[in-house]
């Protein structure tokens, strides 16, 4: 059972995300969009979307940094003051994300026109997001100094996936809420290619260095006149 949950499920989730996303981006480009509903409602979206996105992007980056350079983070947070500042900041962003997603959900349900453009998969996204954020806040509050133990307990667990030698010994002993948070995190990864979440692979980073005007030729001009 533990193997199934802690090893097979994460692998399946990541594989699904990888293969699914490649297929969707390569062959189903037309189906990828932010699916913005701003056209129907703008005021609530202003608060909901901005709070949610800002919060979640910073939290995700935080998780990612902890995974990539766990040792530096451990060393950096050696100093209690730094740890406290980081924890409080992260907690504030978590609350902001929570408020944001609640506003967004309220908006989806309350606005009849927004409901029209709501897909069934959107509720799956909202469900997993809410679970993720609530367990995240729970963990941050009841199992404090997560920034410190995350880098020493969870980071090695995730790393072990990539070295193809999954090691769940430390993970299996963690409190249940942390496990739920981690597993729903993998569920979140798994649904990316099937939901609107695919839009974060569409982040247009190349726009920063692109020139403004785009010309595309449909005709091989060199062949004309010859």
């Amino acid at each position, binding site marked *: 059972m533990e193997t199934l949950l802690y090893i097979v499920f994460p692998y399946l989730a990541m594989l699904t995300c990888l293969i699914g996303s490649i297929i969707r981006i390569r062959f189903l*480009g*037309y*189906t*990828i*969009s*932010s*699916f*913005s*509903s*701003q*056209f*129907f*409602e*703008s005021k609530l*979206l*202003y608060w909901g*979307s*901005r709070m949610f*996105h*800002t919060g979640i992007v910073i939290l995700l980056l935080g998780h990612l940094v902890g995974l990539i350079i766990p040792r530096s983070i451990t060393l950096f947070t050696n100093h209690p003051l730094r740890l406290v500042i980081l924890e409080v900041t992260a907690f504030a962003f978590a609350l902001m994300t929570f408020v944001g997603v609640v506003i967004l959900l309220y908006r989806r349900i309350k606005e*009849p*026109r927004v409901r*029209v*453009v709501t897909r069934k998969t959107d509720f799956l996204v909202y469900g997993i997001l809410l679970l993720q954020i609530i367990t995240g806040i729970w963990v941050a509050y009841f199992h404090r100094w997560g920034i410190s133990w995350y880098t020493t307990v969870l980071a090695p667990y995730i790393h072990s996936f990539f070295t193809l030698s999954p090691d769940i010994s430390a993970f299996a002993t963690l409190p249940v809420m942390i496990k739920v948070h981690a597993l729903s995190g993998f569920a979140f990864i798994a649904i990316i290619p099937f939901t609107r979440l695919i*839009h974060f692979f*569409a982040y*247009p980073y*190349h*726009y*920063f260095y*692109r020139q*403004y*005007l*785009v*010309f*595309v*030729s*449909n*005709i*091989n*001009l*060199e*062949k*004309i*006149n010859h």
Partner: protein
Amino acid sequence: MNVRAQIAMVFHLDKCIGCHTCSVACKNIWTDRKGAEYMWWNNVETKPGTGYPTQWEDQEIYQGGWQKHGHRLELKASGHWKGMTRLYHNPYMPNINDYYEPFSYDYQQLINAPADDDQPTARPISLVTGKPMDIKGGPNWDDDLSGTPDYARSDVNLRDLSAEMQEAMFQLERMVMFYLPRICNHCLNPACVAACPSGAIYKRAEDGVVLVNQDKCRGWRLCISACPYKKVYYNWKSGKSEKCILCYPRLETGQVPACMHSCVGRIRYLGVLLYDADKIETIASVPEEQLLSKHRDIYLDPFNKQVVQYAKDCGIPDSTIVAAQKSPVYKFVKEWQIALPLHPEFRTLPSLFYVPPLLPIMSQVRDQQVLVSSKNFWGNIDEIRIPIAYLAQLFAAGNEHEIECILKKQLAVRYLRRFETVGDVSKEWVESLLSEVHLNFEIAHSMYHLTSLAPFHERFVIPPAHREESIEMLRETSLHKGETGFNTF
């Protein structure tokens, strides 16, 4: 010199009767789909009026187009950095209420209603929610409503007009209005293309048509606020942006775009202009008062041997060069200089030009007399019903001299015809009118011909699309499936 071809258009506003046939032709072909019902790639507005979407010209609300930032040209509210901060929420994007909520009627009720004392009615049904709704607006809700406070008097272009001028415009017996048909301008310096983070909007190099690649569009919506003409629309069903495609599938097969083909007043002209693509940025950044003349300068003379050679070197087909020489648009825009772009101050260098309306200047009534001919008629041109200042706001970034010149040219041609058909004005007088605006009998006659008599093939000169060389044709069909059409999701 980097010569490119641009399919450009002229709309002769004096001939527009405001029948909306163009809008309906377009709607039937392109926007009769779920999520696109509210879009009118072609729409006709009454001026003065607020337009569609409401107040689209007011860039303080929508922040569209380009602005000068020192010497540099920057998008007003998007661009490399500013735009990226607005992906989560775009504060300048118009929403459905700025357009209108599309509706149909419950026609079944008329047939299925049980027998009763009252006539059954067909209630309006929202095409968004499918529920009964109250109609609050439509795409042409300002139609023929000159003088009304909500529409005509809220026109942004009246801002700089004095209160007396505005009042004079809206006196009941002098009420004035004209129609302004609008499609995508297929600009040389398109703000929508520049604002698109995904790089989905592009200009076709061979004919300058601006298109949205539906496979690449990710629904970031920055194009919608960036286009100062509000001619990019968000399809709420597919989550993609859509816009006028200048009926390119028709153009490629030598057919005229549907809006132009169906035009009852025959106000529309379409043809090729050659331009120098290296100059786009320089010309789009000149001071406001030079915008019009410099915009004209970007177009090259297709009869000039050197230009023709350059064009060939840049890979422009001979057939396109021939089409450019026959282009009616070139005549209106460059030779006669009587067609102007709409709101040049947005700095997108539109490829759609308008001949400003002369309006009822001919039947001006003074002291119970209809003034038809008068020796000092030019003295009265600033007393025409619609203030020149207003037209200048629309078509010349406030340059009244430009509008005056064009109206004088149009008037001179009319007097020439008056001389030839009625004969109550003298030849010398007509000659003096013509020479004042640097015209002669020959040019005036060709102006008259193209305006009033020109048959179909003279109004529309479409260069062959050379489909035999199109890359699309040489690739496997499955690879570009869905690229050019609008898929259903």
